[in-house]
Every structure is written in structure tokens, then in C-alpha cells.
């Protein structure tokens, strides 16, 4: 088990290093001169020179890369070019929206998707199964940002139950903040819940066909008992991987959904950074998001150990 964890940790670090290199290359090396890119074509030479110094462009790329990495390790993410404030402060403000949004969506996804999948598999070929499968088939096909627009139209424009967008901030009370994130997280979660339900169903059906389910039934366990005590936990193993991937999708999807609802989160920050060509902000936010995704996948692999004794090898 220790060696499994060590292996996973090593692969986590390698992924992070490679990811940072890729982001660095794409942002700082590929566009040619990042300062020129950020300021546009008709920039003043002295502004350009100032920015070049700020970015450290006089240094070789390798030095710049390590400066960036060591800075981040110390919590120094650089100064945003457009906001003139440390990126760490910008991120700290926005993460209070993006992280709850991703977590809320993930919770909704799991709470809706897993039971739907289990019910469909337990009642295979029934009307319930057909209804769940039909709904999920549709759910997978719906683009989340379109779903978000429809939710705004119905619940904000027509029914006036929710604000059409914006975020009141957590200091106005938990409930208001939660209400502000509810529609966006539903828009994010439902299509993902549809995917999860299908994966859960199919994994559970595979498991229900296993020999050990027959052994359990031969012991005298009724179908439902065999399902809950033997099939579900086994079926969750492949599902865990999907949940990990979905978190990554929810984070990235959140970036787009934040735009639909005008939420002041990391996604808005990214797009503002992109339109204003603020590469310092963009690379940091993207690196943070990638870190979150890689870290969550690491957690999923730890969860495997808890679920699956075959990974808990003794020395």
C-alpha cells in the first residue's frame, strides 16, 4: 500500500511538472513576445520595455519558468497586468465562488446520478429503467450552457424565482449565496448526472452478472440484498474514476457557466484575462485549475485503496 501511494504521489508530481511546462510553453514561448502579445501591435515602446522587465523577459526562458514555479510555491503568483494587484488576491476573491460552485455541482451530480443508475439497473428492462435511460440519453445531449440559458429564461425571466445572474457574495448570508449558485450548479450538474447514471447502471449490470453474485444468491440472500451488499460496492470502482473525470469537467464547465450567470469566479477572471491579454493571470488561474483536477484524481486513487483490498498489498 505504501508503495502504491508513493507511486501515485510520484505520478501526481510528474503530472504537475509536465502540466506546468505545457502551460508555460503555450503562454510564454509560443506567442513569440508575450509583452507584445499583451499590449497589442500599437504599444508604446517604453510601455513595452517596462512590461518586458516586469515579465522578466530579458532572462532566459528556463530562469523565467523556475521563477514562476518557485513564486507559486511561495504563494507569489505575480502581479496582474490589467488589475495591477497580486494575482493571488484576485484568485482568493474568486475562488469563493468557483470552488463552492464546483463542489455543489459535484454533490448534485452524485446525489442524482448514482441513485438513478442503481434504480435503473435494479429494475432492468422495467418502465422505470426505460424512463431513466430515456432521460439520461436526453441529458447527455444537452449543452450545459444552453440549459443554463433556458433555466435563466424560465426561472428568472418568466417566474422571477431567482436572479438572472450575478452573485450577492457570501457576506449577505449563506442562503442568498447558495441561491445565487443553485441555478448554475443545476445547469452544470444535470448533464453530468445523466452520464453518471448511465455509467453506474452499466457497471452495476456488469457486476450483477458476476459469479460472486450467484454465490451470494446461493447463500440465500434475496436479490436486493445481493445487490446492496455485494454488487454496489464492486460497481463503484469504475464509477469512481468517472466521478474524478467529472470533477475536472465541472471545473472547466464552471468557467463557461459563470459567464452565463455573470458570476465573479475564476472563469470570468480567465475570460477577462484572455480578452485583456493578461497572460500572467491566465496562466496562473489555469495552472491552479489543473492542479485542482490532478489533485482530485489523486484523491480518487486514494479512495480506490479504501474500496479495493486488492490494492492494499502487504509487504
Amino acid at each position: 500500500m505504501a508503495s502504491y501511494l508513493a507511486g501515485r504521489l510520484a505520478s501526481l508530481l510528474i503530472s504537475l511538472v509536465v502540466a506546468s511546462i505545457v502551460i508555460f510553453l503555450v503562454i510564454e514561448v509560443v506567442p513569440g513576445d508575450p509583452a507584445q502579445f499583451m499590449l497589442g501591435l500599437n504599444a508604446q515602446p517604453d510601455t513595452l520595455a517596462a512590461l518586458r522587465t516586469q515579465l522578466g523577459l530579458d532572462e532566459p526562458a528556463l530562469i523565467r519558468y523556475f521563477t514562476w514555479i518557485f513564486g507559486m510555491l511561495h504563494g507569489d503568483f505575480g502581479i496582474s497586468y490589467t488589475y495591477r494587484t497580486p494575482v493571488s488576491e484576485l484568485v482568493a476573491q474568486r475562488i469563493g465562488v468557483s470552488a463552492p460552485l464546483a463542489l455543489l455541482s459535484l454533490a448534485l451530480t452524485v446525489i442524482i446520478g448514482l441513485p438513478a443508475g442503481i434504480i435503473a439497473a435494479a429494475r432492468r428492462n422495467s418502465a422505470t429503467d426505460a424512463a431513466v435511460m430515456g432521460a439520461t440519453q436526453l441529458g447527455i445531449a444537452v449543452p450545459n450552457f444552453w440549459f443554463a440559458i433556458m433555466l435563466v429564461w424560465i426561472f428568472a425571466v418568466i417566474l422571477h424565482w431567482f436572479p438572472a445572474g450575478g452573485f450577492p457574495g457570501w457576506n449577505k448570508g449563506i442562503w442568498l449565496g447558495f441561491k445565487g449558485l443553485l441555478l448554475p450548479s443545476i445547469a452544470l450538474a444535470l448533464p453530468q448526472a445523466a452520464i453518471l447514471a448511465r455509467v453506474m447502471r452499466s457497471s452495476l449490470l456488469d457486476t450483477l452478472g458476476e459469479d460472486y453474485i450467484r454465490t451470494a444468491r446461493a447463500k440465500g440472500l434475496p436479490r436486493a440484498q445481493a445487490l446492496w451488499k455485494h454488487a454496489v460496492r464492486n460497481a463503484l470502482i469504475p464509477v469512481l474514476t468517472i466521478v474524478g473525470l467529472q470533477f475536472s469537467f465541472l471545473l472547466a464547465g464552471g468557467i463557461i457557466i459563470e459567464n452565463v450567470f455573470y458570476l465573479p469566479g475564476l472563469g470570468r477572471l480567465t475570460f477577462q484575462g484572455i480578452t485583456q491579454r493578461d497572460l500572467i493571470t491566465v496562466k496562473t488561474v489555469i495552472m491552479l485549475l489543473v492542479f485542482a483536477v490532478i489533485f482530485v484524481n489523486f484523491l480518487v486513487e486514494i479512495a480506490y485503496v479504501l474500496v479495493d483490498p486488492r490494492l492494499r498489498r502487504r509487504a
Partner: protein
Amino acid sequence: MSLLEIEDLSLSIGKAPILRDVDLRLDAGEVLGLVGESGSGKSMTALTIMQLLPHAARATGRVTFDGIDILAAPEAAMNRLRGDDIGMVFQEPMTALNPLKTIGEQVAEGIRWHRGSNRADAEREARRMLDRVGLPEAQFPLSRYPHELSGGQRQRVVIAIACALRPKLLIADEPTTALDVVLQKQILELLQGLVREDRMGLLLISHDLAVVAEMADRVAIMRAGEVLDTGETARTLSEQRHPYTRQLAMASVHVPERPAHRPHGTAPLLELRGVTRDYPLRRRSLFGPAGTFRAVDGVSFTLAAGQSKALVGRSGCGKSTLARMILALDAPTAGEIVFEGQDLARLGTAGMKAARRHMQVVFQDPYGSFDPRHRVERLVAEPLHLAEKRPGRAEQRDMVAHALHEVGLSPSDMDKYPHEFSGGQRQRLSIARAIITRPKLIVADEPVSALDVSIRAQILDLFADLNRRLGLAYLFITHDLTVARAITDEVIVMHEGRFVEEGETAVVLERPRSDAAKALVAAAPDLSRAIAQRLAEAG
């Protein structure tokens, strides 16, 4: 009144009829052997008794267990019976246990479910049961997980689950088919002991007449969903009144006619010198040395042209690894494999082509050994790739037609796909593929062990016939001594990577000297011996 009575049982799944008018009877404490080839309906009979049939199955007739009408019993009543009064053991021990639960949990689960006992009591009971099936606490605490056990040990756990509540009836569906002969003997003895101690009725399902002859008081012989013959074991199998019983019994002990091999003084066709194969093991720690596992350990032997030799041993003894090295599908770590006077390791591309042309292979699984997307012509012609000059299209068709003819198939089969053939026909196809390059040696890895006995007898005849007509040399890799006895001149016994005994087949199998060979011979079920013993016991 008997413990189990089956009358006029018919079963269909969807529109397909599976069982027809099956009548069976089993008394308490009795062992009934249910024998038949694949598809005869043995397993479906068992699943009917358990009421664990597929959804589309419809059963008619009467199945009475201990006075209870099984076919009419509600699901809740069946749940009370299963695992308590009726236990069942399955064929495949590797997949029969839940990988995420400890063996203790899995044995105790049924006890808790049926008896409503608390965890501690159920675990105490489970412990006692695991001891009984030969898994003592010192090596096999309740906290073990299935992946920590071997196949034979897992089958013991399955038996412990089935017998934990001392059922009145135990159903064992091919309980040893996935195990090698030595393990088979151990498991059968275990079952025999448990059944005797607890006075259980045992329904033993097997394709192997010899196994049933050794175990069962009475036998029932099934074919195509019907019970053709039934009666007291020794009488039924020795008198063989029903023609199908006779056919099965003859096929089980079939020995093809073939002349003894006369060695002539030429150089050996194949010679192995000190061949060793190591596999790296997974590293235990990041910095520790990577260990190795020695699958084959310095073995040497020679095979003359036209000679037929068997390589026998328990599963995992290294015989298949050795076969792969001889076929140059894997390279030895040390030692030399010399074929037709040339070291395989030193052959260039052209030399290797020539060597492969003279050395072909027949595999175990007649279903897996053909690409399902190609036609027979292309499949059988595949080794022609090795020919010095690739034959033209017409010539290739001639060669394929000829090879098909040699193995008893029709040249018109050339345009069919493999799924259009039965298992036995497919094994004929593999042999056709193997002989198309006119090889001198055929390495056959368990070539008949996936086949039903009657088919297997025919394939053995074919091997003997080709040996006589084409002068082919054979190396049979097998765990089955009856195959070795039927078709080989000499036998090598392999154990843990080494050769422990070799000699003339008849001599080694009659008077084995090494422990490994003795164990193999003693464990191998033998129909004639079993019948003789039963008759002697009956007086």
C-alpha cells in the same frame, strides 16, 4: 420419500427447449452423479433446483425437495432454502467470491442471514467451517481476502459457504473442472468427507465419467436435455446397457491404434540443452532488488523425428512456458533450443522462417484460435506465409483443400467462417493449419482438454493417423494423463520448472518413481479402476 424428486421436468428458455421430461431422485446421504457432454442440460437442472434460472426460463413438471414443491415455492421460501437446506458449489473458483469482502465475512454472511446470529457467533461458526474445509486459522484467518488465496483454496472457501449450515442437499456443478488433477483429488476427497460426516445428499455434476465413477453411488447420464440412462454406478457403467452410456465410456478410455515408434539412429529433430526462463517479479519496494521467478529451470531433452512425447505436469509447472520457447514465441534466459541441428536463438530471418515452417502448433481453445473475421481458406493458409515461394492463388486453394481433406473436412468448407463449425471441427481446422506447411514437429498445448469426450476420441485418432501417415513428431503439453497414455511413446513429468522423471509412457504411468509423478498418477481419475473398485466393494 426421497430428499429430492424431479419428475417430468421440462425447461425452456425463450423458445429454446433446454430440458425434456427429466426424472431424477436423490436420497439423503446419497451421491448422485449427473454426467453429460456440454449442452446436455446438467447445469440447468441444478439451477432449476436452486431456482436461479435466467429470467426467460419456464419450467414445468415437479421438483420436490424435502416435501416442498420447488417450482411453486415463492421467492421468499426459496431464499430460506438456499444456503440453508440446499448449498451449491460452482465451477469457477477464481470468480465465485466477492473480491471486496474477507473470506470470514463471506462465510459468516449466510449464517447470520439464516440464523440471525450476531457477528461474533457467526464468525465463530465460520471459523469452524473453514477449519473443516482445510483452511486452518494460522494461515487463513477470517480477515483474508480472496485475492490472497489460490484457486484450490478459493474453492474450499466456496465449499465452506455452501456447507456452513449443514445443508441436506449439496449441489456441486463441475467443482473441479477448473483445477488440476492433484487439486481435483483433494477437493473431491473434501466433498466426500463433508457429505459423509453431515449425511448430506450430493448432486455431483461432471463431464468426467471417471470422476463420477469414483464419487457417486448412482449415476444419471444426460444428453440434449434428456436423462438417457440412470442407475447404480458400478452396474450402469460396467454393463453399459444404454448405447450412449457405452459410447461415453468407450470414448473416455479411448486409445487410438498406432504403431510403436522405432527410433532410427539419426540426429534428434529437437534438442533442448539446459533451457531456463526467468520472469522478473514486481519490485517489493522502490529500492529493493527486483526478484525473479524461474518458470523453467535448466531442462534438457531430445525428440526424434516421428516420435510422440508428452510433457505432463500440474498447472503452473512451467510446461506452457517451455512450449512457447520451443515455438520461438518467447526466448530462453539461458540454454539452447536446437531444432534440426540449428540453435533457434542464432537463426536469422530466413533461417527462422524455415524452422517455423517445420514446426507448427495446435492450441487448446478451438474457439479462440481463429480470427473470427477471416475465412477458413485464409486461416488455414496463414502459415504459407513461411513458404520459400508464396504459392499462387489457385495453388494455395489446392493446398488448403488438401489439408482440409487430410483432417477429415471437406474442401468446400474453405469459404466458411470459423463460427460455422463445431468445437471438434474447429480443432480439425487448427490441425489443418498446422500441417499445411508439411512440418516435422507439432507442438500441441492441451489440444483436447476443451473438447467433450466423444469428440476428443476422434481428435486423438486424427493425431495418431497423421503421425502414422505423415511421420509427424508430436510434443503434447498436457495435464491429462489419459491423453499422454493414449497418444505418446514417451513422457516427461515436469514439476516446478524442472523435469523430475522421464521414460516410456507406459512405464512411467504404471510405476512412477518421483513424488510428483506418483501424485499425478494417483490423482488422475481412472474409469476402469474406479468401476473395478466399486464392484469389489459391492462384493
